């Protein structure tokens, strides 16, 4: 069903040049009500890496991932996207956001636009593509996520799984340097989770840099290069899936795994 361009190298990250795409240093954030949600979180995500973000509910996963495209401003520390700083005051954030794709739990497709127009809206207005160019690209992406035949339907006519695949195509149409996923399968009926994870897996194999908040253990084990574990706004672990699941050292992580794996 899905076939994005394969990586030019083998998927072994060791032989990829390590180029940092997201650099987060001592990121601290307070919500307006004074709640200290991120308490100095640091991490670097390199080109081509697939990083899964896990942690208990309320630990700050969504907040952290949303600082990477400025949907949440932060007050201390620094975040760079491919070398460009996201300023605390968010100056010029729109330009940076074009380089960072995001997929939401609730899909957030535009209900008044057809599937095709959902995808071409950004490229035609922000990337200067002509309508035919944008349409051709969109059709290619739709073929890759397996729903080319739905191009002229409205989002409301599609199933949740199909809508989420359109949302992935919409984000990819901007040719981002990194893709962020915030629980992309949590709002889906169980039988549709697989089709979305398959698309994400194939995207990972194509070499896309990805940061995914997800509770899908199978995906984390098989697709992630690293898993970051957040608890109470603090980064508790940042390690390989094997270490994470089979040899967890931190007590907080052991407790979490006991709850989600039984």
């Amino acid at each position, binding site marked *: 069903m899905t076939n994005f361009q394969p990586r030019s190298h083998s998927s072994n990250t060791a032989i990829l040049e390590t180029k940092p795409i997201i650099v987060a240093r001592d990121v601290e954030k307070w919500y307006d009500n004074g709640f200290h949600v991120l308490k100095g979180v640091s991490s670097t995500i390199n080109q081509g890496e697939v990083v899964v973000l896990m942690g208990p509910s309320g630990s700050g996963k969504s907040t952290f991932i949303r600082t990477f495209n400025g949907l949440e401003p932060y007050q201390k520390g620094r975040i760079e996207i491919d070398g460009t700083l996201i300023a605390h005051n968010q100056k010029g954030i729109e330009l940076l956001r074009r380089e960072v794709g995001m997929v939401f739990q609730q899909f957030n497709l535009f209900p008044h636009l057809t599937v095709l127009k959902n995808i071409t809206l950004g490229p035609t207005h922000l990337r200067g593509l002509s309508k035919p160019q944008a349409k051709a690209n969109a059709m290619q992406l739709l073929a890759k996520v397996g729903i080319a035949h739905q191009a002229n339907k409205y989002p409301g*006519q599609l199933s949740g799984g199909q809508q989420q695949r359109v949302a992935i195509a919409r984000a990819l149409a901007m040719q981002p340097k990194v893709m962020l996923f915030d629980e992309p399968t949590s709002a889906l009926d169980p039988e549709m989770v697989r089709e979305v994870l398959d698309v994400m897996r194939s995207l990972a194999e194509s070499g896309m840099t990805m940061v995914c908040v997800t509770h899908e253990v199978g995906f984390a084990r098989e697709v992630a290069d690293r898993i970051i574990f957040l608890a109470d706004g603090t980064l508790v672990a940042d390690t390989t899936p094997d270490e994470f699941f089979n040899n967890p050292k931190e007590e907080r992580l052991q407790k979490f795994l006991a709850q989600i794996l039984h």
Partner: protein
Amino acid sequence: MNYSFDFSVVWENIDILLAGAWLTLKISLVAIAFGLVIGVIGSLCRTSGNKILNAITLAYVEVIRNTPYLIQLFFIFFGLPNLGIKLSAEQAAILSLAVNFGAYSTEIVRAGVESIPQGQWEAGMAIGFKKLAIFRYIVIPPALANIYRALVGQVILAVLFTSIVSQIAAEDLTYAGDYLNSRTFRSFEIYFTVALLYLAIVWLIKGVAFLIENQAFKFAKYRR
């Protein structure tokens, strides 16, 4: 009852009535178009988060919605010339109606804008759009779909409001009726016909509104 109906006075003067109806339709459509633009911009100001824009817009809405339209019309037609702004009866009618309809539509469209989930704004921001572009391409179309029926209701009220502009001698349908009535005293026949013509105008506008709804808001059928 020994009144004998005589509609011949209507037929003999139908051109006067139709000319009035035409002006009523024209004033209505132009004022509604301007008023809608005011409503969309007003709703933007009301929801922008900019305190000053919000306060100015809210003051406008409050003043217009809590004063009689007739006084607004008199103010524009008789009051503004004192400041050197002199408008024809027709211009004053259109301006006052647009300003009046704009205030009501500001609040109606604002309700539509506020009905759009935050996720739509976030999706637009995540792509890289600025706030104004999100408002225009992403928020306003489904917002209008959500409040369309209420807006059409207000449009019809605006059409009916136009009858008041006869008070400044704008030669609309009501003015034509008054004129004929004062010359023939065939009040029943004349105002009966005038009412029918208003009905026809409102139905025409309703029909157009229905066609627009079917074309522009097709997607709304599929929304859950």
